[in-house]
């Protein structure tokens, strides 16, 4: 079963801009937007107005587009957190928790090493974020490699543990003494803040995310480890008999994947929030899972899917403000998009079988 070769992927991969690509986009996602329009109508809102708001607030203005990019950074990184383990059929649903632990580690570094100069502090924070998320995921990797617990279950459950752990720290040891009873860490010093570009909120994390994506693609296609991972993903039994250390790979891909999510946590606290809060992520880890899954782990597909879901995420914020809709309407649209991809995929599978 070649999950990577499904048509939803090729669609996302076909690249935007071409007329064909646009047409396929409309055919695939049109129904999702129509159904969502019905939902808006039922809620007593004007769907055309709502879509116009989303469009003008995201793609139509430079500022809007920059906000889409800002959202894409954690989405791309958490998508990689899922995509890397998925190459050897591991299902990491713990991107959210790994993001939180990465943010926690980075926050600890930002508060205790605040005296370091910026050029030294930022790489350390990045490394701490990576290590935090990585170790958190590697724990699930070890449990899986030993054959004790499925990584799907453990990463899912560790999400709750991670979020509660962050809560514990912001209510306790890391609580900002100056912010009365508000559960949050102290404000980061400027040296612990990632640089931003062109006066927008788009920050250096974008460079990290794109770089990570390129390295991911190159490692898979060019290196010994990529070949061995594709072997494990393609036929575990053959890989095992070729002497490829499966257990080692399970732990390492979980560590690297979790590291990506941890990095997303670090960039969020450093560049966007400026401090650690319990409401750090609006579910980036879960949306990242969706992105990786929609794109079958393909690098360009993940970029395309991340753009789409970043627009929807940003659109949710807009609808909250302009249409006074609850913020969770974005989840409805996300779910509809997911159904569209699912339907498309199943139809293709049916055609192959028949």
């Amino acid at each position: 079963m070649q999950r990577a070769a499904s048509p939803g992927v090729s669609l996302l991969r076909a690249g935007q801009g071409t007329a064909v690509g646009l047409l396929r986009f409309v055919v695939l996602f049109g129904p999702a937007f129509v159904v969502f329009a019905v939902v808006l109508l039922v809620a007593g809102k004007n769907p055309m107005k709502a879509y116009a708001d989303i469009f003008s607030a995201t793609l139509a203005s430079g500022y809007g587009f920059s906000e889409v990019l800002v959202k894409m950074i954690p989405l791309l990184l958490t998508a990689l957190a899922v995509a890397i383990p998925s190459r050897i059929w591991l299902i990491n649903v713990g991107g959210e928790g790994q993001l939180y632990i990465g943010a926690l580690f980075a926050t600890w570094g930002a508060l205790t090493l605040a005296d370091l100069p910026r050029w030294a502090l930022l790489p350390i924070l990045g490394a701490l974020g990576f290590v935090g998320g990585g170790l958190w995921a590697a724990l699930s990797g070890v449990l899986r490699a030993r054959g004790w617990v499925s990584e799907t279950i453990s990463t899912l459950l560790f999400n709750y543990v991670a979020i509660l752990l962050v809560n514990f720290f912001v209510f306790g040891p890391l609580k900002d003494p100056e912010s009365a009873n508000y559960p949050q860490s102290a404000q980061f010093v400027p040296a612990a803040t990632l640089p931003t570009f062109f006066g927008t909120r788009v920050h250096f994390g974008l460079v990290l995310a794109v770089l990570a994506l390129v390295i991911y693609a190159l490692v898979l296609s060019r290196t010994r480890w990529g070949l061995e991972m594709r072997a494990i993903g393609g036929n575990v039994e053959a890989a095992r008999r070729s002497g490829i250390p499966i257990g080692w790979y399970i732990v390492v891909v979980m560590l690297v994947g979790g590291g990506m999510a941890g990095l997303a946590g670090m960039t969020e606290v450093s560049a966007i929030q400026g401090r650690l809060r319990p409401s750090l992520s609006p579910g980036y880890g879960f949306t990242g899972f969706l992105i990786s899954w929609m794109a079958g782990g393909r690098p360009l597909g993940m970029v395309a899917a991340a753009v789409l879901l970043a627009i929807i995420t940003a659109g949710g914020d807009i609808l909250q403000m302009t249409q006074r809709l609850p913020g969770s309407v974005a989840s409805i649209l996300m779910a509809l998009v997911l159904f569209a991809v699912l339907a498309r995929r199943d139809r293709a599978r049916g055609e192959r079988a028949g």
Partner: protein
Amino acid sequence: MRPPQPEPMVTMRGITKSFPGVLANDHVDLDVRGGEVHALLGENGAGKSTLMKVLYGFYRADSGEIRLRGHPAHIRSPRDARELRIGMVFQNFTLIPGMTVAENIALFLPHLPALLDKGEIAARIQEVSRRYGLNVDPSAEVRQLSIGEQQKVEVLKLLLADAQVLILDEPTRVLAPHEIEALFQVFTNLRRDGYAVIFITHKLHEVLACADRITVMRRGRVAATLARGEATEGGLVSLMFGTVPAEPRFYRSAPAGETAAPLLELRQVSTRGEGASPSLHGIDLAILPGEIVGVAGVSGNGQRELGDVVLGLERCSRGTKRLFGHDATRWSVARIRASGLAYIPEDPLAMAVVPALTVRENMALGDTPKYARHGGFSMDWASVRTDIARTAERIALNLPPLEAVAGTLSGGNLQRVVIIREMARRPRLIIAFYPTRGLDVLSATATRELLLAARGEGAGVLLISEDLGELFALSDRLVVLYRGRIAGTFRPQQTTMNAVGFLMTGSPDAHAASG
């Protein structure tokens, strides 16, 4: 009892089927009558499977005509074929392991009612299985059945679905000698009742043992169709290959160097089998340099586990393993392979090859540390190619196309990929499972030659096979594996195939009982 009908049950005329770059069937004509067992003989890639997949609707012919009992038939899918009472047993069975025999068969039946009458289905299974000697327990789970029993279920499936034309693709490939005999008996029973049985094979003696008529295919064409009475081994071979190859040579056992240090030494090795796989009990086995040790046994008696223990995939729960003079009881697979072990598994597609990767990439998997450059950041594909080409030439096996995706290759080609890959590493010890299975006569000969050549150079070989003829021809020593224990050790010249066969079935005095 119906007499054989004069009108052929199946008539294929001018069937042509091409794949990109290959003309698999070139104007093939075939007649199969009711009440006959028809063998399709030919080497790998001769077009036998393709022709049968056309008949079964799995492929559509580019041109040509199929008639059933004289009427033109349009077979566009296996569903059409089944409605026209054609059934096929593929090399890879299509049973669902977690379901019972009766459930598997019920799933296959046309017009399955919404409410299943399991009792009635079981009764029908028992009636049909008794009639044709296909005895299986309808309530057994398929996962608990041996390969031979699973094959019976596949045949039962077709019979209960009312098929009249039964196609079997290399049915004997996975069977032990006594199971093959039983299968041929089933063929005889089916012939008696007017069924048409077509079976694909490349084993001459099977053809001569049970076929009424034989169609020999060569390079996509029919070389000849003969009645069994007209066929001789030599004649069939020359039809298959166009020329008569040299007489199969008589392999003499090399004198064993009893004094040399063994390459492999298992002492009192036991394993804990999980689930359905058997465990090994107190295995003592040594392989000396320049020695081929054959392992005879019906599959599922611990052969795979024995190979896995040597390879390091399965841990010894008791006992020790020494490789090349070192204690290797706890070595990893990678370390054992690096020390000079080659492994040719029983099922290349499942156990040695990654179907989604190309042949070239699969070749590199045999030894990734060797081909990695810059600490693993890139791969030296040039030296992979050189090694493959050199090895293929050295051991005289045709090289499959390097950029082909492995999953698209035929079984014989996959086997060649694995053999070439493993031999490229110049191993000191070779574990070979059924190494000639699925290979045509020429490739099989080349493979036997290369095992002998490796022995000549001082390598040791652990040869696991069900082909007693092959084991007797190649082995210096022979052990019989039965239920995870070594039931006997022989020199081939000091025993007989019958004696070994009885040990394999766990009945050392069965010949006395059966008379």
